[in-house]
């Protein structure tokens, strides 16, 4: 029976896929939840847990190959799943709207923003173009976008990623929907922009009394916006309850694991024992580099950095800060404009083609996206065996034996050697990615955001593995990331980068305990805390910090 208190009632929803042999497989199994107007429910779980499938199911939609096999979805008085397609199309975009993960991919780059935002109410005849424009401007103001009068006359590439994500929300809100679905809306954003966007979403939902479904894998974010949380694993409900209860008193083991792995600052930062030997393993001296003809557009300015044997140096910064460029320079994928890099006191040739095989062996690079960093047409035996044969002159047979040992070392079954990368899960692939770097027996591994594409629990496992390997093998890491919480758990020393410069560097406890550099403060302030009232404080604090930094950059 419909309960007038709830706007959306999902009852016993099942979604199935049919495989090639005609067998059915449930990917969403018996999910029920309710949402009231002005309330937010969070669907949380790792990738493949069915959270996006459920949210799409609420619109009466499934991805090709799936179908809704049981259950009901009721929006107000309407049974969504029983509507014929033309009715559904009216419902979608008007009553139920959807904000996708990547706003950049959802906007048409050849149309002005206003035209895209007002498109739906105008073509459905709900508003005239003039009314729609007026409504859009109100929303721009509500979302605290800069220049609300004129921002709509720009093209999508003329605004920042955070602004585009908020414009996407404006597009979803313009027809005054009763239900808003937000699918990982801040995952693609920089940490420091994320909280602003989150804050405007939260306000908008409250002010318009809209019901919302928030899909994410990050529990610490959810704590800020959601009233209820539904924890999912493999398409099944694990735990469902009010936010405060879930985060303070989780019942299920999986929820506890999620909370343990959340992106939080560790309560205590351990003091690293820093030994300084001379010469250090790697020393970067006054390096400047850029892109374009004759490296005219400078990406790095006067970088000085040293890495000791057996230590982890975290390099942290937002996108565009030059941290990946620094990693590419050290690995020799790119030549600097000026400056020197020393390895074990010896000057290192700039480009990879000029370095000796022994120098190449010492520095290995682990890429961010393991799914594109491993050749899909090579078996793991070849992916891992090749560096051994190349650097260490092993025979094919010895390499095969060594690959088994290496797979064991990174906690993978040895028979994986005969698999292809697409047959592994994301976390397993990231282990192989690391194992490939280890296969060379290097002194230094440059880890470029290797945990940022992973779910929080899997990411935590990879971090544990990194520490294990360091204890056993004495290898050094240069850990490039945008996530200060991760870096504070693993690094001995930290270098904070901004606009192509290192703004501050030193032992992790010194850098992260007050008084910090202003920019470090801003980064620290952007890490969510697991309490429900954190967001409002953080936004106020952030605005103060931004003014202190004298940053005119738009958010």
């Amino acid at each position, binding site marked *: 029976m419909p309960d007038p208190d709830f706007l959306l009632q999902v009852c016993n929803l099942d979604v199935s896929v049919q495989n090639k042999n005609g067998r059915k497989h449930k990917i969403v199994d018996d999910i029920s939840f309710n949402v009231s107007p002005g309330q937010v429910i969070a669907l949380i779980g790792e990738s493949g847990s069915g959270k996006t499938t459920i949210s799409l199911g609420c619109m009466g939609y499934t991805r090709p190959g799936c179908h809704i096999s049981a259950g009901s979805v009721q929006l107000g008085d309407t049974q969504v799943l029983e509507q014929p397609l033309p009715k559904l199309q009216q419902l979608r975009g008007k009553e139920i709207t959807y904000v996708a993960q990547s706003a950049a991919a959802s906007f048409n780059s050849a149309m002005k923003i206003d035209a895209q935002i007002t498109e739906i109410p105008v073509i459905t005849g709900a508003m005239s173009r003039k009314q729609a424009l007026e409504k859009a401007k109100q929303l721009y103001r509500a979302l605290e976008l800069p220049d609300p009068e004129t921002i709509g006359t720009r093209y999508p590439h003329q605004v920042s990623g955070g602004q585009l994500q908020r414009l996407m929300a404006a597009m979803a809100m313009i027809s005054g929907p009763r239900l808003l679905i937000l699918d990982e809306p801040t995952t693609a954003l920089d940490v420091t922009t994320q909280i602003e966007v989150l804050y405007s979403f939260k306000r908008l939902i409250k002010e318009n009394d809209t019901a919302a479904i928030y899909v994410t894998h990050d529990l610490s974010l959810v704590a800020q916006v959601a009233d209820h949380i539904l924890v999912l694993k493999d398409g099944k409900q694990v735990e469902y309850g009010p936010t405060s209860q879930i985060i303070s008193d989780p019942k299920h083991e999986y929820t506890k694991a999620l909370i343990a792995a959340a992106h939080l600052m560790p309560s205590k930062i351990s003091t690293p024992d820093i030994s300084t030997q001379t010469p250090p393993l790697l020393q970067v001296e006054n390096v400047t580099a850029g892109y374009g003809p004759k490296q005219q557009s400078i990406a790095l300015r006067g970088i000085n950095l040293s890495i000791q044997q057996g230590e982890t140096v975290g390099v942290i910064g937002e996108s565009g800060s030059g941290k990946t460029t620094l990693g590419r320079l050290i690995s020799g994928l790119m030549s600097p404009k000026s400056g020197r890099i020393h390895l074990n006191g010896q000057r290192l040739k700039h480009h990879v083609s000029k370095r000796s095989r022994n120098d190449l062996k010492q520095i290995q690079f682990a890429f961010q996206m393991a799914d*594109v960093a491993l050749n899909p047409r090579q078996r793991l035996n070849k992916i891992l065996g090749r560096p051994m044969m190349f650097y260490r002159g092993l025979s094919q047979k010895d390499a095969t034996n060594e690959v088994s040992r290496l797979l064991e070392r990174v906690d993978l079954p040895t028979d994986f050697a005969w698999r292809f990368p697409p047959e592994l899960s994301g976390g397993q692939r990231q282990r192989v990615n690391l194992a490939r770097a280890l296969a060379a027996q290097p002194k230094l591994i440059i880890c470029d955001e290797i945990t940022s594409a992973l779910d929080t629990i899997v990411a935590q496992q990879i971090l544990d593995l990194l520490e294990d390997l360091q204890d056993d093998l004495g290898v050094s890491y240069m850990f490039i990331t945008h996530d200060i919480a991760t870096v504070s758990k693993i690094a001995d020393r930290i270098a904070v980068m901004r606009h192509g410069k290192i703004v501050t560097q030193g032992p992790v406890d010194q850098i992260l305990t007050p008084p910090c550099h202003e920019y470090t403060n801003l980064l620290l302030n952007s890490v969510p805390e697991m309490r429900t009232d954190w967001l409002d404080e953080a936004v106020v604090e952030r605005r103060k910090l931004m003014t202190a930094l004298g940053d005119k950059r738009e958010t």
Partner: protein
Amino acid sequence: MTPQERTWRSQFGDALSDLTPGVALCLLILITFFLIACFAPWIAPYDEGAILTNDSFLSPNKEMRLGSDYLGRDVLSRLIFGVRVTLFLALIITFLSFFSGVSLGFLAAAFGGRVDSWMSRLNDAMLSFPALMLALIVINSLGSSFAVLVLTIAFIDMTRVYRVARALAVNIMVMDYVEAAIVRGEGKIWIVWHEVLPNALTPLAAEFGIRFTYAILFISALSFLGLGVQPPQSDLGVMVKENMQAILYGEYTTLYPAICIAFIAISMNVFVDWLLQRSSAQLPDEL
């Protein structure tokens, strides 16, 4: 997806179970033509050049199943030998053009920069000549022989293959796994052979089918113009041209080779389309 080791045998089995009746028929037609081409001397009832009767354009009869051609030769025998010549020429041409086109295209993509620019602009210049015109000029000035024919058409096809191969390789060269090989210090040749080629194989195989069909049509077109395979050797294109006048006498002689060309071309295209669809469906669907 259930993780299981993929062997060649299981892949082949998968492929067979994916065959639709239409594709299976086309595959059967192709295999039949290849068998005919291989065993032509044993299958053909008469020699291709033997003049058996004074009557041209005889209707099909007991001795000559498809009748006689304009010189009184057996059409069926000439057709069988014609298929042999056309198919093998096309095969050699396609192999040659692929070997050179893919090697050059991959190297251009691997070296990039100025090397790539020069090679690609040169290739564009070649492409700007109409293919048939270019072939006519070269063959006319060098005289028609198998070698000239094969090399000329292979060269023209190479420019097409080069473009496809380079475009494929350029896309693969920017992948992180190639970058990983570069950081390791691997040479260009190793990268092309081990990292690029395996990932370009399926689209290249599809392109191979298309090029093969074009080669048949191109040889036939040249033969029809009198610049391809020279009489008395038969070839499907030559046969169409030779027997055109049969139509005036109400005989279908000229249509038999034309039908053969159409069957081979259509079957090959259907098969290649199926291969392409299958390969794109098999790509690992991530995200």
